[in-house]
């Protein structure tokens, strides 16, 4: 394991552990407002200070990390699951089903990802409870992010369909749904795993962009994207440089994920 990979693992471990122990590290809830300490500088009680509503920034950062780190993989899992279903079915059956999937993928991918997200998100309820906004945001990412992976899975399924071990499985008497489920899908596991890990950073970035545009996770629920909103004011950054902390954590997490993904690709 290279030095870069070790650092990446260490960073991921520290960030995940801190997020998991958020309530223990910072007892204050992410939405508790300390009205006497609005825009307070870092102190022992509030290591990253407080925001304009008097909320503890560290608490919000750690809980926001929980939201982003739990739900981006959940959205990636949904996208990969949909891609596995559609891609395997189309690659296995071929014919009109394959053409139909190709058309749906073309249709989905004919629109820029951000435009598609923006339009579909805006078409859903905007004035919703914070938890609902979290669910909507990440469900949307999962439900719209399957088309690209589905194409890769379909190509993999087509290649495996005509492989020697599938021929052997047929010769052994496997028929119907057992062939794709028991023999094709396990063969596609490396492709699916790669698609899952590729989607995670993409969805983290998409959530950050959506939340900065006001269409992501809504207040008071924190998320990395929502926390970055504080960066909109330049004088505020000058006065409180620690509001850059969410950007730094986001950067470290994504850079670490890319380093580990790159290492996996090199191994493959």
């Amino acid at each position: 394991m290279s030095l870069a990979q070790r650092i990446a693992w260490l960073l991921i471990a520290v960030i995940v552990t801190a997020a998991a122990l958020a309530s223990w590290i910072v007892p204050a809830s992410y939405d508790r407002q300390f009205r006497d300490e609005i825009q307070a500088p870092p102190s022992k009680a509030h290591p990253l200070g407080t925001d304009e509503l008097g909320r503890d920034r560290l608490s919000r950062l750690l809980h926001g990390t929980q939201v982003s780190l739990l739900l981006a993989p959940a959205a990636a899992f949904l996208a990969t699951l949909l891609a596995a279903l559609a891609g395997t079915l189309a690659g296995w059956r071929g014919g009109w089903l394959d053409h139909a999937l190709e058309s749906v993928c073309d249709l989905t991918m004919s629109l820029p990802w951000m435009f598609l997200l923006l339009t579909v998100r805006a078409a859903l309820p905007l004035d919703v409870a914070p938890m609902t906004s979290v669910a909507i945001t990440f469900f949307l990412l999962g439900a719209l992010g399957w088309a690209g992976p589905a194409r890769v899975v379909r190509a993999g399924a087509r290649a495996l369909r005509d492989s020697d071990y599938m021929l052997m499985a047929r010769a052994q008497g496997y028929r119907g749904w057992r062939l794709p489920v028991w023999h094709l899908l396990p063969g596609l596991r490396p492709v699916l795993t790669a698609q899952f890990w590729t989607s995670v950073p993409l969805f983290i970035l998409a959530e950050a962009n959506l939340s900065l545009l006001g269409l992501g996770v809504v207040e008071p629920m924190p998320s990395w994207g929502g926390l970055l909103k504080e960066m909109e004011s330049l004088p505020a950054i000058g006065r409180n440089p620690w509001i850059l902390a969410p950007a730094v954590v986001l950067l470290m997490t994504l850079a670490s994920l890319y380093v580990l993904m790159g290492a996996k690709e090199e191994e493959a």
Partner: protein
Amino acid sequence: MTIAPLVRRVVSLPLLWLLAGFLGTTLIRFAPGFAVDERELDARLTADSVASIRQERAHQTNPVAYYLSFTGGLLSGDLGVSRTLGRPVRELLRDRIPVTARLAGWGLLGAWGVALAAALAPVAWPGYGLRTVTSLAGGLILSIPAAVVALIFLHGNWPREAAAAVVLFPRLHNYCSRTIDHVQALPHVLLARAKGARPVSVLLRHILAPALPQLIALAGVSLSMALGVCIPLEVLCDVPGIGQLAWQSAMGRDLPVLVSLTLLTAAVTMTANLAADLTLFALGKRT
């Protein structure tokens, strides 16, 4: 690429394009709050006036009928009137398309230039650690959301076109350097090197030429990437382009604008991809 899939693609494109517009119409029509018009809250309005306001939007309630009338108007160049901005959509697009075209165009040009240079330089001058430097830079920038890059350029008062280039660079560089790496490991490149060809000659004659089909395909996709990048850039940097219009109309459920933008962006990206495929077909080099 053989001719049959290309023909199928050309034939299916208009259908997909129209379908994209129809799906957009249906989506917005059934969005919560679509039927709400804040003008109705004005206490000075009489019941007749409120009824009149509702009547203005009656033709938008049936998505099929609306889309048919919209496409009919499209043929004569009438795209309807924006509900939120109160101006003909055609005028809005005429004013804003050049702004986005300039932003995306310069962004693409800058990103392609830097991405290609960063992918090719380590091949031409190996052994200087250029690959590590470019990969590190690309990886770091890739980890920053486009909206944050927009804010950095906004606060620094730097050109927005440069922000677009910065966001697009790592995405293009990633693919370019993988393609170049793949090609330079091919036997003919190893043979050329073994025969003592100079690095620059190997690069131009033996690497760049076989990598061209993949790079052309990427060029088609990069236009879609650029349009996506324009949305956060234009919204956060207050650039009056198509991206900002898309955001404003999405927030206001502005059906005529959103359908027009869906058709416009779908047409642009589909045409770019088709152009890339046609170029590949003409070159006869698609692998």
